[in-house]
């Protein structure tokens, strides 16, 4: 993003969980209207909208176009576009909205991320896609945890076992999830529970995995100048960057893949840090929401995001620095581990969770004191695309 700065002036989200009694449209309406209310606007003020939903025609009623957002909101006669970019979908939708604001194509842009994954059993959700859809032979046998099982195995070979650190991530994130009223899983776990959980893929057990979840989250974006005029509380989207580095079915065929992390995260982080002028992220950032789809992912995210040296991600979580009272608390929402991962919603939800920290809107036990600069990170597909967003309090930029 170049030119003028983008402000987040409205935020809304459903609780994440199993919303058997609510439809996809219900969730979209609840998140969007809450965000628009939060901005002090009405639906009629929205002049463009983006919908982040990763998978269409998969769970039940989600379509493959922006009409799945326009229809429930009656948002007619305006551009409404669906964005899909694997697990980076929601964050990319925010990026699209932000670009429109910066470019002057939209004054008040609405971005909604939504995924209704529990209109089917978990087996028929993401796993079912891997088993029954996609390329008939290439990468057949791959599952989401399987992508990260390969990494945990190689990490063990090169650096030593990440098991203890993975357990620490699970304990930390479920601690936060237990005190986040919007999380899907709201119980703390102890290390024994994590390590005794049913095996899923390689080193990854059930409590190293995020659950299958319904949810929606929405933001309203405008320019910083307009936000100031409105005189409302806002945060600034300093950078919202995305990088694709591999294909989908072929990602694990890539000879350049070291299976110790993700080039996509490294590339997106480099772009975002350059834009935000961040040179020492561990020292400069106050709060981080990163893509902990599996506990090992958070460990390697630390390294890919430059918060730790290669191979040293384990030490960062084991030191407690990314937990309560630490120097850089990570996933104070409970992360994907506790919130779940309704794919299109997650990236938007993470940006909101960072912004809520900066605005000191969190429950006292989760609130990071004096947080001014935060990062949200989404990792998509088999690690082949990633998005990194930097959010700031306005006065920090002044």
């Amino acid at each position, binding site marked *: 993003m170049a030119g003028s700065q983008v402000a987040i002036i409205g935020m809304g989200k459903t609780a994440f969980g199993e919303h058997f009694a609510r439809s996809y449209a219900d969730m979209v309406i609840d998140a969007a209207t809450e965000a628009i209310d939060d901005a002090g606007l009405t639906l009629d003020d929205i002049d463009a909208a983006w919908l982040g939903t990763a998978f269409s025609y998969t769970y039940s009623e989600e379509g493959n176009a922006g009409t799945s957002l326009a229809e429930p909101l009656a948002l007619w006669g305006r551009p409404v576009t669906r964005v899909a970019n694997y697990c980076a979908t929601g964050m990319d939708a925010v990026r699209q909205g932000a670009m429109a604001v910066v470019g002057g194509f939209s004054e008040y842009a609405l971005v909604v991320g939504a995924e209704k994954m529990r209109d089917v059993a978990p087996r028929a959700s993401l796993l079912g896609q891997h088993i029954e859809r996609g390329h*008939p032979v*290439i990468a*057949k*046998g*791959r599952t989401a945890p399987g992508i990260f*099982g390969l*990494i945990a195995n190689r990490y063990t*070979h090169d650096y030593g076992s990440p098991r203890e650190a993975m357990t620490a991530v699970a304990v930390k994130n479920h601690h936060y999830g237990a005190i986040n009223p919007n999380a899907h899983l709201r119980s703390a776990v102890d290390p024994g529970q994590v390590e005794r959980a049913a095996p899923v893929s390689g080193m990854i057990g059930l409590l190293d995995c995020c659950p299958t979840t319904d949810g929606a989250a929405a933001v309203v974006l405008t320019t910083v100048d307009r936000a100031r005029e409105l005189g409302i509380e806002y945060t600034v989207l300093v950078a919202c960057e995305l990088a694709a580095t591999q294909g989908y079915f072929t990602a694990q065929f890539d000879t350049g893949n070291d299976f110790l992390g993700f080039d996509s995260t490294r590339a997106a982080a480099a772009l975002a840090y350059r834009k935000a002028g961040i040179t020492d992220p561990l020292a400069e950032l106050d709060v981080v929401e990163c893509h902990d789809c599996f506990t090992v992912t958070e460990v390697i995210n630390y390294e890919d995001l430059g918060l730790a040296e290669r191979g040293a991600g384990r030490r960062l979580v084991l030191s407690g620095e990314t937990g309560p009272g630490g120097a850089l608390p990570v996933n104070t929402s409970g992360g994907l581990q506790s919130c779940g991962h309704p794919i299109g919603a997650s990236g938007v939800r993470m940006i909101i969770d960072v912004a809520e920290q900066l605005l000191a809107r969190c429950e006292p036990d989760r609130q990071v004191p004096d947080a001014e600069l935060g990062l949200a990170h989404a990792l998509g597909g088999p690690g082949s695309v990633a998005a990194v967003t930097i959010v700031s309090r306005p006065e920090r930029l002044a």
Partner: protein
Amino acid sequence: MNIAGIEALGIHIPRWSLDREALAQNWSAKSAPGARTVANFDEDSLTMGVEAALRALGPDPSARDGIDAVLFATTTPVFTEKQHAAVVAAALRIPADQCVDLTGSLRSGLDAVRLACGLIRGGTARHVLVIAADRRDLQPGGPHERLSGDAGAAVVVGTGPSIVSLIGQATFSDPAAGIWRSPEDRWSRVADDRFVTTELLTPWLAAAAGRACTMAGFGAEDLHAAAFAAPLARVEASVSSRLGLTVPSPSGGIDRDIGYTGVAHPFLQLALSLTDRLPGERVLIAAAGDGATALLGTVSDHDGLSEGASQMAAALRRRRELPVGMYQRMRGQLPVEPVNPSTSEMLLRREQSVGLELRGTRCRKCGRGHFPPRRICLECHTVDLMDTLELPRNGALFTHTVEHLFPVPVNELIMGVVDVGDVRVYTQVTDTAPDECGPGRPVDLVLRKLHDGGHLPHYFWKAKVVS
């Protein structure tokens, strides 16, 4: 014209070994001791044939040169309508125009060798690849199930340097119903054992063997080894007795550890017959099935004589005991989670060189290899300047993971990333226990069935850790 002979021999014995007494106990029955081999859940007659053929051909690509015909024999075809030999030839990268399947009779493996000799004599082929493989199903719980086994075999027939020169052959057909399977049957039916043994199998084999000897101008007493492939126990002994043979049979070990392997069986027996043979000695192999076919050969001065036997011994050393429940899931005797992966016949056709032939591309400008194939080079971004890259069929494991979610009939699925030459293949790991996997472990790539999406078997190359 030179006499045709068997130039190379390859045997594939599946890794799973099922204890006969354990299987019998499951049905409150009693069994003779020993074990039978069981094809893995991803193996069928086609894949076992390919694996045997890869062994017969060896790693040198020039072994494929001059193979003008591929004959595929089985009684357990994957397709009722669609040719196996054509799929096998593509997987082996053999551009043979003459592909033929021989199905329906337990003797069709040896018949394929006879026909190969005919093609060579007639001048329409220089070398013929004959493949015989079976994954036979018999009445669950019955004695024939326990005494059967699964295996594949392949021989190259030609007039070049050979292991065995074929100096005599005989065949005849008989319409009697002894063993048969109708299209709707899930397993083969066997008529009364005594009737089949004494009235059909024994006289069939004795007659074919006798005629082959007569044709070659020898008597049964001139044989140095003889073996008789028959689906019922004790037939071999009664044939030997009828012919007055005193030479030892090589079949004892096969009966104990493998079982009767259908069309592949005479080739397993041949492989064992050849060990410890001296040049010039005579070996007879006969197979029963709707009559019988017998081949008589002279052992050549060839250093590959014990190759087949050592392949079998190596396979048996790597045996892994198969729990009865897993066997029953693999064979469809117990239900497994149904899956129906989507497919596209058009995509499979477009990508035939990828999934079946295991070919990628190599940038002509910078030399970077790509698998799956690419049009734009990942290294130098040159567009459409690629040569075909034939992947070697071995490599080394880079990383792996043991999957517990993806539904397969075995206890777990292993996914592996394999460095193959200068490219990489991400694929299922098969015939391998989790504790045999690790970074750097050498693997072979073997053709296996991935699934039956759209009622079409989908094949791809899987990794198999070799110790």
